[in-house]
Protein backbone atom coordinates (compact mmCIF):
# COMPACT_ATOMS: atom_id res chain seq x y z
CA UNK A 1 0.00 0.00 0.00
CA UNK A 2 1.79 3.11 -1.17
CA UNK A 3 1.66 6.12 1.13
CA UNK A 4 -0.91 8.70 0.14
CA UNK A 5 0.13 11.80 -1.75
CA UNK A 6 -2.17 13.87 0.44
CA UNK A 7 -3.13 12.88 3.96
CA UNK A 8 -5.66 14.82 6.03
CA UNK A 9 -6.99 13.97 9.47
CA UNK A 10 -9.32 16.08 11.55
CA UNK A 11 -8.33 19.28 9.78
CA UNK A 12 -9.82 22.37 11.32
CA UNK A 13 -9.58 26.07 10.60
CA UNK A 14 -11.40 28.61 12.68
CA UNK A 15 -11.31 32.39 12.39
CA UNK A 16 -12.25 34.87 15.04
CA UNK A 17 -14.01 37.83 13.53
CA UNK A 18 -15.59 40.85 15.08
CA UNK A 19 -19.32 40.76 14.99
CA UNK A 20 -21.02 43.89 13.81
CA UNK A 21 -24.70 44.42 13.95
CA UNK A 22 -26.71 47.10 12.30
CA UNK A 23 -28.58 49.78 14.17
CA UNK A 24 -27.57 52.83 16.11
CA UNK A 25 -27.55 51.25 19.54
CA UNK A 26 -25.41 48.34 18.36
CA UNK A 27 -22.91 50.74 16.80
CA UNK A 28 -22.45 52.54 20.08
CA UNK A 29 -21.97 49.29 21.94
CA UNK A 30 -19.46 48.22 19.31
CA UNK A 31 -17.35 51.29 19.94
CA UNK A 32 -17.03 50.34 23.56
CA UNK A 33 -16.63 46.62 23.35
CA UNK A 34 -16.03 44.60 20.22
CA UNK A 35 -17.94 41.39 20.08
CA UNK A 36 -16.09 38.49 18.58
CA UNK A 37 -17.45 35.36 17.11
CA UNK A 38 -15.87 32.19 15.87
CA UNK A 39 -16.21 31.19 12.25
CA UNK A 40 -15.49 27.59 11.45
CA UNK A 41 -14.27 27.62 7.89
CA UNK A 42 -13.14 24.01 8.00
CA UNK A 43 -14.58 21.94 10.80
CA UNK A 44 -12.73 18.66 11.07
CA UNK A 45 -12.32 16.93 7.71
CA UNK A 46 -10.36 13.80 6.86
CA UNK A 47 -9.49 12.20 3.58
CA UNK A 48 -6.50 10.86 1.64
CA UNK A 49 -5.46 11.14 -1.98
CA UNK A 50 -3.52 8.33 -3.58
CA UNK A 51 -0.71 9.31 -5.94
CA UNK A 52 -2.06 9.99 -9.42
CA UNK A 53 -5.68 10.37 -8.36
CA UNK A 54 -7.83 13.10 -9.81
CA UNK A 55 -10.34 14.14 -7.18
CA UNK A 56 -13.07 16.71 -7.34
CA UNK A 57 -13.66 18.88 -4.32
CA UNK A 58 -17.21 20.13 -4.52
CA UNK A 59 -19.05 22.65 -2.46
CA UNK A 60 -21.01 25.85 -2.68
CA UNK A 61 -19.35 29.22 -2.11
CA UNK A 62 -18.00 29.61 1.35
CA UNK A 63 -18.00 25.89 2.04
CA UNK A 64 -14.32 25.74 2.92
CA UNK A 65 -12.82 24.50 -0.35
CA UNK A 66 -10.36 27.33 -0.88
CA UNK A 67 -9.43 27.34 2.81
CA UNK A 68 -8.61 23.64 2.62
CA UNK A 69 -6.54 24.12 -0.50
CA UNK A 70 -4.61 26.95 1.13
CA UNK A 71 -3.82 24.71 4.06
CA UNK A 72 -2.65 21.98 1.73
CA UNK A 73 -0.31 24.35 -0.12
CA UNK A 74 1.15 25.94 2.98
CA UNK A 75 -0.50 29.35 2.65
CA UNK A 76 -2.60 28.85 5.73
CA UNK A 77 -1.81 27.44 9.11
CA UNK A 78 -4.43 24.94 10.37
CA UNK A 79 -6.05 25.49 13.75
CA UNK A 80 -6.06 21.78 14.51
CA UNK A 81 -5.62 18.44 12.83
CA UNK A 82 -3.03 16.69 10.77
CA UNK A 83 -2.11 17.31 7.17
CA UNK A 84 0.80 16.07 5.09
CA UNK A 85 1.42 16.41 1.38
CA UNK A 86 4.04 14.10 -0.09
CA UNK A 87 5.01 13.27 3.43
CA UNK A 88 5.74 16.87 4.40
CA UNK A 89 3.95 19.40 6.53
CA UNK A 90 2.79 22.15 4.16
CA UNK A 91 2.94 25.17 6.43
CA UNK A 92 6.62 24.57 7.11
CA UNK A 93 7.09 25.64 3.50
CA UNK A 94 10.23 23.62 2.93
CA UNK A 95 11.84 24.38 -0.40
CA UNK A 96 11.78 20.72 -1.46
CA UNK A 97 8.05 20.67 -0.76
CA UNK A 98 7.33 23.87 -2.68
CA UNK A 99 9.15 22.52 -5.72
CA UNK A 100 6.78 19.61 -5.97
CA UNK A 101 3.44 21.32 -5.68
CA UNK A 102 1.54 23.97 -7.50
CA UNK A 103 -1.59 26.00 -6.81
CA UNK A 104 -3.64 27.57 -9.56
CA UNK A 105 -6.18 30.09 -8.36
CA UNK A 106 -9.01 30.75 -10.77
CA UNK A 107 -9.29 34.47 -10.28
CA UNK A 108 -5.75 35.48 -9.51
CA UNK A 109 -2.80 35.94 -11.80
CA UNK A 110 0.78 35.09 -11.09
CA UNK A 111 1.79 36.19 -14.56
CA UNK A 112 3.34 39.61 -14.86
CA UNK A 113 0.63 41.78 -16.36
CA UNK A 114 2.20 44.05 -18.93
CA UNK A 115 4.64 41.75 -20.64
CA UNK A 116 4.32 38.55 -22.69
CA UNK A 117 3.73 35.34 -20.79
CA UNK A 118 6.98 33.91 -22.09
CA UNK A 119 8.83 36.28 -19.74
CA UNK A 120 6.96 34.93 -16.73
CA UNK A 121 7.70 31.41 -17.92
CA UNK A 122 11.40 32.12 -18.06
CA UNK A 123 11.23 33.63 -14.61
CA UNK A 124 9.60 30.49 -13.27
CA UNK A 125 12.23 28.43 -14.96
CA UNK A 126 14.87 30.29 -13.01
CA UNK A 127 12.92 30.16 -9.76
CA UNK A 128 12.32 26.42 -9.93
CA UNK A 129 15.77 25.69 -11.36
CA UNK A 130 14.39 23.71 -14.27
CA UNK A 131 17.22 22.39 -16.47
CA UNK A 132 17.15 23.82 -19.99
CA UNK A 133 16.48 20.47 -21.64
CA UNK A 134 13.56 19.62 -19.40
CA UNK A 135 12.21 23.13 -19.68
CA UNK A 136 12.20 23.08 -23.45
CA UNK A 137 10.52 19.71 -23.52
CA UNK A 138 7.79 20.48 -20.99
CA UNK A 139 7.12 23.88 -22.55
CA UNK A 140 6.73 22.18 -25.90
CA UNK A 141 4.27 19.67 -24.52
CA UNK A 142 2.27 22.29 -22.66
CA UNK A 143 2.17 24.52 -25.73
CA UNK A 144 0.78 21.65 -27.74
CA UNK A 145 -1.75 20.50 -25.19
CA UNK A 146 -3.01 23.99 -24.44
CA UNK A 147 -2.56 25.52 -27.89
CA UNK A 148 -0.45 28.34 -26.55
CA UNK A 149 1.56 29.10 -29.67
CA UNK A 150 0.36 32.60 -30.66
CA UNK A 151 -0.39 33.61 -27.07
CA UNK A 152 3.08 33.58 -25.63
CA UNK A 153 4.35 36.72 -27.30
CA UNK A 154 1.39 38.92 -26.48
CA UNK A 155 1.32 40.99 -23.27
CA UNK A 156 -0.79 39.17 -20.72
CA UNK A 157 -3.18 42.10 -20.38
CA UNK A 158 -4.08 41.75 -24.06
CA UNK A 159 -5.19 38.15 -23.72
CA UNK A 160 -8.78 37.12 -23.23
CA UNK A 161 -9.79 35.58 -19.92
CA UNK A 162 -9.62 32.05 -21.31
CA UNK A 163 -6.25 32.59 -22.98
CA UNK A 164 -4.87 34.07 -19.78
CA UNK A 165 -6.09 31.07 -17.79
CA UNK A 166 -4.36 28.69 -20.18
CA UNK A 167 -1.09 30.58 -19.75
CA UNK A 168 -1.53 30.65 -15.98
CA UNK A 169 -1.98 26.90 -15.91
CA UNK A 170 1.05 26.38 -18.12
CA UNK A 171 3.17 28.62 -15.92
CA UNK A 172 2.09 26.64 -12.89
CA UNK A 173 3.05 23.32 -14.44
CA UNK A 174 6.44 24.14 -15.89
CA UNK A 175 8.25 22.58 -12.97
CA UNK A 176 6.28 19.34 -13.29
CA UNK A 177 4.83 19.26 -9.80
CA UNK A 178 3.63 15.90 -8.56
CA UNK A 179 0.70 17.45 -6.74
CA UNK A 180 -1.53 19.96 -8.50
CA UNK A 181 -4.10 22.03 -6.63
CA UNK A 182 -6.62 23.77 -8.86
CA UNK A 183 -8.95 26.27 -7.23
CA UNK A 184 -11.88 26.99 -9.52
CA UNK A 185 -9.78 27.00 -12.67
CA UNK A 186 -12.70 27.30 -15.07
CA UNK A 187 -14.59 30.06 -13.34
CA UNK A 188 -15.72 32.83 -15.63
CA UNK A 189 -14.70 31.01 -18.80
CA UNK A 190 -16.94 30.21 -21.72
CA UNK A 191 -18.12 26.66 -22.29
CA UNK A 192 -15.62 25.83 -25.04
CA UNK A 193 -12.67 26.98 -22.97
CA UNK A 194 -13.94 25.09 -19.94
CA UNK A 195 -14.09 21.94 -21.95
CA UNK A 196 -10.63 22.46 -23.34
CA UNK A 197 -9.12 22.93 -19.91
CA UNK A 198 -10.86 19.83 -18.64
CA UNK A 199 -9.46 17.81 -21.49
CA UNK A 200 -6.05 19.21 -20.72
CA UNK A 201 -6.18 18.23 -17.08
CA UNK A 202 -7.22 14.68 -17.96
CA UNK A 203 -4.45 14.41 -20.49
CA UNK A 204 -1.89 15.93 -18.12
CA UNK A 205 -2.80 13.46 -15.41
CA UNK A 206 -2.61 10.60 -17.86
CA UNK A 207 0.81 11.60 -19.15
CA UNK A 208 2.56 12.68 -15.99
CA UNK A 209 0.71 10.85 -13.25
CA UNK A 210 0.30 13.98 -11.14
CA UNK A 211 -2.15 13.93 -8.24
CA UNK A 212 -4.85 16.49 -8.91
CA UNK A 213 -7.23 18.06 -6.43
CA UNK A 214 -9.70 20.27 -8.20
CA UNK A 215 -12.27 22.50 -6.55
CA UNK A 216 -15.23 23.71 -8.44
CA UNK A 217 -18.85 24.58 -8.14
CA UNK A 218 -19.42 23.59 -11.77
CA UNK A 219 -20.76 20.07 -11.94
CA UNK A 220 -19.54 19.69 -15.49
CA UNK A 221 -15.94 20.01 -14.32
CA UNK A 222 -16.35 17.21 -11.84
CA UNK A 223 -18.38 14.99 -14.12
CA UNK A 224 -15.78 15.15 -16.84
CA UNK A 225 -12.69 14.78 -14.72
CA UNK A 226 -13.21 12.95 -11.51
CA UNK A 227 -14.24 9.51 -10.62
CA UNK A 228 -14.07 10.40 -7.01
CA UNK A 229 -15.65 13.42 -5.42
CA UNK A 230 -15.39 14.89 -1.98
CA UNK A 231 -18.29 17.13 -1.05
CA UNK A 232 -17.80 19.82 1.56
CA UNK A 233 -20.43 22.13 3.03
CA UNK A 234 -20.27 24.44 6.03
CA UNK A 235 -16.77 23.19 6.63
CA UNK A 236 -17.41 19.50 6.94
CA UNK A 237 -17.52 16.58 4.54
CA UNK A 238 -20.88 15.37 3.32
CA UNK A 239 -19.62 12.72 0.99
CA UNK A 240 -16.42 11.06 -0.16
CA UNK A 241 -16.57 8.44 -2.86
CA UNK A 242 -17.49 7.61 -6.40
CA UNK A 243 -19.58 10.10 -8.29
CA UNK A 244 -21.99 7.39 -9.35
CA UNK A 245 -22.44 6.33 -5.75
CA UNK A 246 -23.17 9.93 -4.85
CA UNK A 247 -25.91 10.02 -7.41
CA UNK A 248 -27.32 6.75 -6.19
CA UNK A 249 -27.18 7.68 -2.56
CA UNK A 250 -28.87 10.97 -2.90
CA UNK A 251 -31.61 10.37 -5.33
CA UNK A 252 -34.59 8.24 -4.81
CA UNK A 253 -35.78 8.64 -8.35
CA UNK A 254 -34.82 7.73 -11.81
CA UNK A 255 -36.12 9.15 -15.06
CA UNK A 256 -37.68 6.98 -17.76
CA UNK A 257 -38.01 8.53 -21.18
CA UNK A 258 -40.34 6.50 -23.32
CA UNK A 259 -41.10 7.16 -26.98
CA UNK A 260 -44.67 6.28 -27.96
CA UNK A 261 -46.80 7.00 -30.99
CA UNK A 262 -48.69 9.78 -29.26
CA UNK A 263 -49.50 11.21 -25.85
CA UNK A 264 -53.02 9.82 -25.56
CA UNK A 265 -52.18 7.01 -23.16
CA UNK A 266 -52.71 7.64 -19.49
CA UNK A 267 -49.30 7.21 -17.98
CA UNK A 268 -50.13 8.29 -14.48
CA UNK A 269 -50.34 4.73 -13.36
CA UNK A 270 -46.69 4.18 -14.11
CA UNK A 271 -45.18 7.18 -12.39
CA UNK A 272 -45.04 11.01 -12.23
CA UNK A 273 -45.44 12.37 -15.71
CA UNK A 274 -42.95 15.19 -16.02
CA UNK A 275 -43.78 16.01 -19.61
CA UNK A 276 -45.17 14.58 -22.82
CA UNK A 277 -44.95 15.92 -26.34
CA UNK A 278 -45.08 14.23 -29.74
CA UNK A 279 -45.33 10.91 -27.99
CA UNK A 280 -42.14 11.41 -26.06
CA UNK A 281 -43.00 11.05 -22.39
CA UNK A 282 -40.73 11.66 -19.42
CA UNK A 283 -41.64 9.81 -16.26
CA UNK A 284 -40.19 10.07 -12.79
CA UNK A 285 -40.29 6.80 -10.91
CA UNK A 286 -39.00 5.58 -7.56
CA UNK A 287 -35.51 4.14 -8.01
CA UNK A 288 -36.38 0.75 -6.51
CA UNK A 289 -39.30 0.28 -8.89
CA UNK A 290 -37.47 1.20 -12.07
CA UNK A 291 -37.08 -2.33 -13.39
CA UNK A 292 -40.62 -3.27 -12.51
CA UNK A 293 -42.18 -0.20 -14.15
CA UNK A 294 -40.03 -0.60 -17.22
CA UNK A 295 -41.29 -4.16 -17.60
CA UNK A 296 -44.90 -3.01 -17.35
CA UNK A 297 -44.37 -0.21 -19.86
CA UNK A 298 -42.83 -2.53 -22.37
CA UNK A 299 -45.58 -5.09 -21.86
CA UNK A 300 -48.54 -2.71 -21.89
CA UNK A 301 -47.73 -0.03 -24.44
CA UNK A 302 -46.46 0.15 -28.03
CA UNK A 303 -43.02 1.45 -27.00
CA UNK A 304 -40.87 2.66 -29.85
CA UNK A 305 -37.91 3.55 -27.68
CA UNK A 306 -37.09 3.64 -23.97
CA UNK A 307 -34.30 5.30 -22.01
CA UNK A 308 -33.48 5.18 -18.29
CA UNK A 309 -31.55 8.16 -16.85
CA UNK A 310 -30.29 9.47 -13.58
CA UNK A 311 -31.62 12.90 -12.68
CA UNK A 312 -29.26 15.76 -13.64
CA UNK A 313 -26.29 15.95 -11.33
CA UNK A 314 -27.01 19.52 -10.43
CA UNK A 315 -30.20 18.36 -8.87
CA UNK A 316 -28.36 15.66 -6.98
CA UNK A 317 -25.79 18.04 -5.62
CA UNK A 318 -28.40 20.53 -4.58
CA UNK A 319 -30.06 17.81 -2.66
CA UNK A 320 -26.77 16.93 -1.01
CA UNK A 321 -26.25 20.53 0.02
CA UNK A 322 -29.82 20.87 1.16
CA UNK A 323 -29.30 17.88 3.36
CA UNK A 324 -26.14 19.44 4.66
CA UNK A 325 -28.08 22.50 5.69
CA UNK A 326 -30.31 20.59 8.02
Amino acid at each position, binding site marked *: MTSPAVHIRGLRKT*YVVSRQEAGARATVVDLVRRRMQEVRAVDGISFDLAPGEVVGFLGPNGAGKT*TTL*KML*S*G*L*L*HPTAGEVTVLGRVP*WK*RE*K*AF*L*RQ*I*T*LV*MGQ*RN*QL*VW*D*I*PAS*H*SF*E*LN*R*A*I*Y*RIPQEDYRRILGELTDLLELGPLLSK*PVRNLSLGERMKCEIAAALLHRPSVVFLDEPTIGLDVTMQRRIRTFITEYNRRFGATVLLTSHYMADVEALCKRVVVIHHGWLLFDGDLSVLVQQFTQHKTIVVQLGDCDADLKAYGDVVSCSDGRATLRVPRSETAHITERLLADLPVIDLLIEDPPIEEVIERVFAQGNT
Partner: protein
Amino acid sequence: MKGLAELYIQQFRTTLAMMLQYRASLLIWMIGHVLEPLVYLIVWSVVAGTGGGSVGDYAKRDFAAYFIVLMLVNHVTYTWIMYEFEYRIRHGSLSFALLRPVHPIHSDIADNVSSKVITLPFMVAVAGVLALVFRPALSPEPWAIGLFVPALLLAFLVRFLLEWTLAQAAFWTTRVSAINQTYFVLLLFLSGQIAPITLMPHPVRVLAQILPFRAMVGFPVELLLGRLTLSEALTGLGIQAAWVIIGLVLLRVAWRAGVRVYTAVGA
Protein backbone atom coordinates in the same frame (compact mmCIF):
# COMPACT_ATOMS: atom_id res chain seq x y z
CA MET B 1 24.46 29.89 -6.36
CA LYS B 2 24.19 29.33 -10.07
CA GLY B 3 20.45 28.97 -9.58
CA LEU B 4 20.25 32.37 -7.95
CA ALA B 5 22.34 33.96 -10.66
CA GLU B 6 19.90 32.62 -13.23
CA LEU B 7 17.01 34.09 -11.24
CA TYR B 8 18.65 37.52 -11.19
CA ILE B 9 19.26 37.42 -14.92
CA GLN B 10 15.66 36.50 -15.65
CA GLN B 11 14.34 39.14 -13.30
CA PHE B 12 16.50 41.72 -15.06
CA ARG B 13 14.95 40.78 -18.38
CA THR B 14 11.46 40.94 -16.90
CA THR B 15 12.09 44.32 -15.31
CA LEU B 16 13.56 45.66 -18.51
CA ALA B 17 10.48 44.56 -20.44
CA MET B 18 8.21 46.16 -17.85
CA MET B 19 10.12 49.43 -17.80
CA LEU B 20 9.79 49.78 -21.53
CA GLN B 21 6.05 49.71 -20.98
CA TYR B 22 6.17 52.30 -18.25
CA ARG B 23 8.44 54.91 -19.76
CA ALA B 24 6.35 57.81 -18.48
CA SER B 25 6.42 56.61 -14.89
CA LEU B 26 10.19 56.27 -15.11
CA LEU B 27 10.51 59.85 -16.27
CA ILE B 28 8.40 61.15 -13.44
CA TRP B 29 10.33 59.13 -10.93
CA MET B 30 13.55 60.63 -12.15
CA ILE B 31 12.19 64.16 -12.15
CA GLY B 32 11.43 63.79 -8.46
CA HIS B 33 14.93 62.54 -7.77
CA VAL B 34 16.48 65.47 -9.58
CA LEU B 35 14.28 68.26 -8.32
CA GLU B 36 14.72 67.81 -4.59
CA PRO B 37 18.52 67.93 -4.37
CA LEU B 38 18.44 70.69 -6.97
CA VAL B 39 16.21 72.85 -4.81
CA TYR B 40 18.45 72.41 -1.78
CA LEU B 41 21.51 73.04 -3.92
CA ILE B 42 20.09 76.37 -4.95
CA VAL B 43 18.89 77.32 -1.48
CA TRP B 44 22.25 76.60 0.10
CA SER B 45 24.10 78.37 -2.69
CA VAL B 46 22.06 81.46 -1.97
CA VAL B 47 22.83 81.15 1.73
CA ALA B 48 26.51 80.75 0.93
CA GLY B 49 26.32 83.81 -1.27
CA THR B 50 24.93 86.04 1.47
CA GLY B 51 27.18 84.48 4.11
CA GLY B 52 30.38 85.76 2.57
CA GLY B 53 30.97 82.94 0.16
CA SER B 54 30.54 79.87 2.28
CA VAL B 55 28.63 78.12 4.99
CA GLY B 56 30.89 76.26 7.36
CA ASP B 57 33.46 74.75 5.05
CA TYR B 58 31.13 74.57 2.11
CA ALA B 59 31.44 77.17 -0.61
CA LYS B 60 28.95 77.48 -3.46
CA ARG B 61 30.82 75.04 -5.63
CA ASP B 62 31.17 72.62 -2.73
CA PHE B 63 27.41 72.62 -2.31
CA ALA B 64 27.08 71.98 -6.01
CA ALA B 65 29.39 68.99 -5.76
CA TYR B 66 27.64 67.72 -2.63
CA PHE B 67 24.12 67.82 -3.98
CA ILE B 68 24.92 66.51 -7.44
CA VAL B 69 26.73 63.51 -5.97
CA LEU B 70 23.91 63.17 -3.44
CA MET B 71 21.40 63.04 -6.26
CA LEU B 72 23.20 60.10 -7.81
CA VAL B 73 23.83 58.26 -4.55
CA ASN B 74 20.22 58.70 -3.46
CA HIS B 75 19.03 57.41 -6.80
CA VAL B 76 21.25 54.34 -6.64
CA THR B 77 20.25 53.45 -3.09
CA TYR B 78 16.54 54.24 -3.45
CA THR B 79 13.89 51.56 -2.90
CA TRP B 80 10.13 51.53 -3.21
CA ILE B 81 9.61 48.15 -1.60
CA MET B 82 7.54 49.52 1.27
CA TYR B 83 4.74 50.58 -1.04
CA GLU B 84 5.01 47.51 -3.20
CA PHE B 85 4.85 45.16 -0.24
CA GLU B 86 1.69 46.74 1.09
CA TYR B 87 0.18 46.44 -2.38
CA ARG B 88 1.08 42.76 -2.54
CA ILE B 89 -0.49 41.96 0.77
CA ARG B 90 -3.60 43.96 0.05
CA HIS B 91 -4.15 42.24 -3.30
CA GLY B 92 -3.17 38.79 -2.17
CA SER B 93 -0.37 38.46 -4.69
CA LEU B 94 1.98 37.75 -1.82
CA SER B 95 0.50 34.25 -1.78
CA PHE B 96 2.25 33.49 -5.03
CA ALA B 97 5.55 34.52 -3.52
CA LEU B 98 4.88 32.15 -0.64
CA LEU B 99 4.27 29.26 -3.00
CA ARG B 100 7.70 29.65 -4.55
CA PRO B 101 10.80 27.82 -3.33
CA VAL B 102 12.86 31.03 -3.19
CA HIS B 103 12.87 33.90 -0.76
CA PRO B 104 11.01 36.82 -2.35
CA ILE B 105 13.80 39.25 -1.53
CA HIS B 106 15.87 37.98 -4.42
CA SER B 107 13.29 39.02 -6.98
CA ASP B 108 13.01 42.38 -5.29
CA ILE B 109 16.73 43.08 -5.26
CA ALA B 110 17.01 41.99 -8.86
CA ASP B 111 14.09 44.21 -9.85
CA ASN B 112 15.51 47.20 -7.99
CA VAL B 113 19.00 46.85 -9.43
CA SER B 114 17.66 46.24 -12.91
CA SER B 115 15.64 49.44 -12.76
CA LYS B 116 18.69 51.41 -11.71
CA VAL B 117 20.80 49.94 -14.47
CA ILE B 118 18.29 51.31 -16.93
CA THR B 119 17.80 54.73 -15.37
CA LEU B 120 21.34 55.43 -14.23
CA PRO B 121 22.66 56.53 -17.63
CA PHE B 122 19.97 59.20 -17.76
CA MET B 123 20.66 60.36 -14.24
CA VAL B 124 24.35 60.58 -14.99
CA ALA B 125 23.52 62.65 -18.07
CA VAL B 126 21.40 65.00 -15.97
CA ALA B 127 24.22 65.18 -13.43
CA GLY B 128 26.53 66.13 -16.27
CA VAL B 129 24.24 68.95 -17.34
CA LEU B 130 23.90 70.20 -13.78
CA ALA B 131 27.69 70.08 -13.46
CA LEU B 132 28.01 72.33 -16.46
CA VAL B 133 25.54 74.79 -14.97
CA PHE B 134 26.71 74.83 -11.36
CA ARG B 135 30.37 74.06 -11.72
CA PRO B 136 30.92 71.72 -8.76
CA ALA B 137 34.28 71.52 -7.00
CA LEU B 138 35.22 67.87 -7.04
CA SER B 139 38.76 66.59 -6.67
CA PRO B 140 38.95 63.56 -4.44
CA GLU B 141 42.05 61.54 -3.68
CA PRO B 142 42.43 58.30 -5.65
CA TRP B 143 41.88 56.23 -2.52
CA ALA B 144 38.62 58.05 -1.89
CA ILE B 145 37.42 57.16 -5.37
CA GLY B 146 38.49 53.57 -4.77
CA LEU B 147 36.63 53.31 -1.48
CA PHE B 148 33.58 55.01 -2.94
CA VAL B 149 32.51 51.91 -4.86
CA PRO B 150 32.31 49.55 -1.84
CA ALA B 151 30.77 52.38 0.17
CA LEU B 152 28.05 52.80 -2.43
CA LEU B 153 27.44 49.06 -2.55
CA LEU B 154 27.22 48.81 1.22
CA ALA B 155 24.96 51.87 1.32
CA PHE B 156 22.59 50.15 -1.11
CA LEU B 157 22.58 46.99 0.99
CA VAL B 158 21.98 48.83 4.26
CA ARG B 159 19.10 50.80 2.78
CA PHE B 160 17.55 47.87 0.95
CA LEU B 161 17.71 45.46 3.87
CA LEU B 162 16.35 47.96 6.39
CA GLU B 163 13.60 49.23 4.11
CA TRP B 164 12.63 45.67 3.20
CA THR B 165 12.38 44.93 6.90
CA LEU B 166 10.30 48.04 7.43
CA ALA B 167 8.03 46.94 4.59
CA GLN B 168 7.05 43.93 6.70
CA ALA B 169 4.97 46.31 8.80
CA ALA B 170 2.29 45.81 6.16
CA PHE B 171 1.66 42.39 7.69
CA TRP B 172 0.35 44.03 10.83
CA THR B 173 -1.27 47.24 9.67
CA THR B 174 -2.79 48.85 6.63
CA ARG B 175 -1.64 52.31 7.72
CA VAL B 176 1.81 51.89 6.30
CA SER B 177 1.68 55.33 4.68
CA ALA B 178 2.11 56.92 8.10
CA ILE B 179 5.07 54.67 8.89
CA ASN B 180 6.61 55.27 5.49
CA GLN B 181 6.29 59.01 5.72
CA THR B 182 7.86 59.08 9.18
CA TYR B 183 10.70 57.03 7.86
CA PHE B 184 11.27 59.32 4.88
CA VAL B 185 11.29 62.44 7.00
CA LEU B 186 13.85 60.89 9.33
CA LEU B 187 15.84 59.82 6.30
CA LEU B 188 15.70 63.32 4.90
CA PHE B 189 17.08 64.96 7.99
CA LEU B 190 19.51 62.34 9.17
CA SER B 191 21.06 61.15 5.92
CA GLY B 192 22.28 64.49 4.74
CA GLN B 193 19.65 65.25 2.14
CA ILE B 194 18.59 68.60 3.54
CA ALA B 195 22.10 69.71 4.28
CA PRO B 196 25.48 68.07 4.84
CA ILE B 197 25.39 66.49 8.26
CA THR B 198 28.32 68.54 9.46
CA LEU B 199 26.16 71.65 9.03
CA MET B 200 23.23 70.30 10.99
CA PRO B 201 22.69 71.25 14.66
CA HIS B 202 24.43 69.20 17.28
CA PRO B 203 21.53 66.91 18.31
CA VAL B 204 21.02 65.91 14.69
CA ARG B 205 24.71 65.17 14.26
CA VAL B 206 24.63 62.93 17.31
CA LEU B 207 21.56 61.06 16.09
CA ALA B 208 23.17 60.65 12.69
CA GLN B 209 26.03 58.79 14.32
CA ILE B 210 23.86 56.14 15.89
CA LEU B 211 21.16 55.75 13.26
CA PRO B 212 21.77 54.03 9.94
CA PHE B 213 20.59 56.85 7.66
CA ARG B 214 23.96 58.46 7.16
CA ALA B 215 25.35 55.07 6.19
CA MET B 216 22.66 54.87 3.53
CA VAL B 217 23.28 58.13 1.70
CA GLY B 218 25.41 60.77 3.35
CA PHE B 219 28.51 58.76 4.05
CA PRO B 220 29.36 57.76 0.46
CA VAL B 221 28.77 61.35 -0.63
CA GLU B 222 31.10 62.78 1.99
CA LEU B 223 33.64 60.14 1.06
CA LEU B 224 33.70 60.99 -2.63
CA LEU B 225 33.87 64.69 -1.88
CA GLY B 226 37.14 64.09 -0.08
CA ARG B 227 35.83 65.36 3.25
CA LEU B 228 36.88 62.34 5.26
CA THR B 229 40.25 61.20 6.44
CA LEU B 230 41.29 57.65 5.61
CA SER B 231 40.57 56.44 9.12
CA GLU B 232 37.16 58.12 9.11
CA ALA B 233 36.41 56.46 5.80
CA LEU B 234 37.40 53.02 7.02
CA THR B 235 35.39 53.48 10.20
CA GLY B 236 32.43 54.46 8.07
CA LEU B 237 32.75 51.33 5.99
CA GLY B 238 32.86 49.30 9.16
CA ILE B 239 29.71 50.98 10.42
CA GLN B 240 28.01 50.21 7.13
CA ALA B 241 29.02 46.57 7.35
CA ALA B 242 27.66 46.41 10.89
CA TRP B 243 24.33 47.82 9.72
CA VAL B 244 24.20 45.23 6.93
CA ILE B 245 24.50 42.48 9.51
CA ILE B 246 21.91 44.10 11.76
CA GLY B 247 19.67 44.48 8.74
CA LEU B 248 19.98 40.82 7.83
CA VAL B 249 19.06 39.73 11.35
CA LEU B 250 16.10 42.11 11.61
CA LEU B 251 14.91 41.06 8.20
CA ARG B 252 14.90 37.39 9.07
CA VAL B 253 13.03 37.98 12.30
CA ALA B 254 10.47 40.30 10.75
CA TRP B 255 9.84 38.07 7.73
CA ARG B 256 9.35 34.96 9.84
CA ALA B 257 6.96 36.77 12.15
CA GLY B 258 5.14 38.29 9.20
CA VAL B 259 4.66 34.98 7.43
CA ARG B 260 3.33 33.49 10.64
CA VAL B 261 0.73 36.22 10.91
CA TYR B 262 -0.16 35.98 7.23
CA THR B 263 -0.59 32.21 7.25
CA ALA B 264 -2.69 32.37 10.37
CA VAL B 265 -5.25 34.55 8.71
CA GLY B 266 -4.62 34.09 5.02
CA ALA B 267 -5.61 36.41 2.24
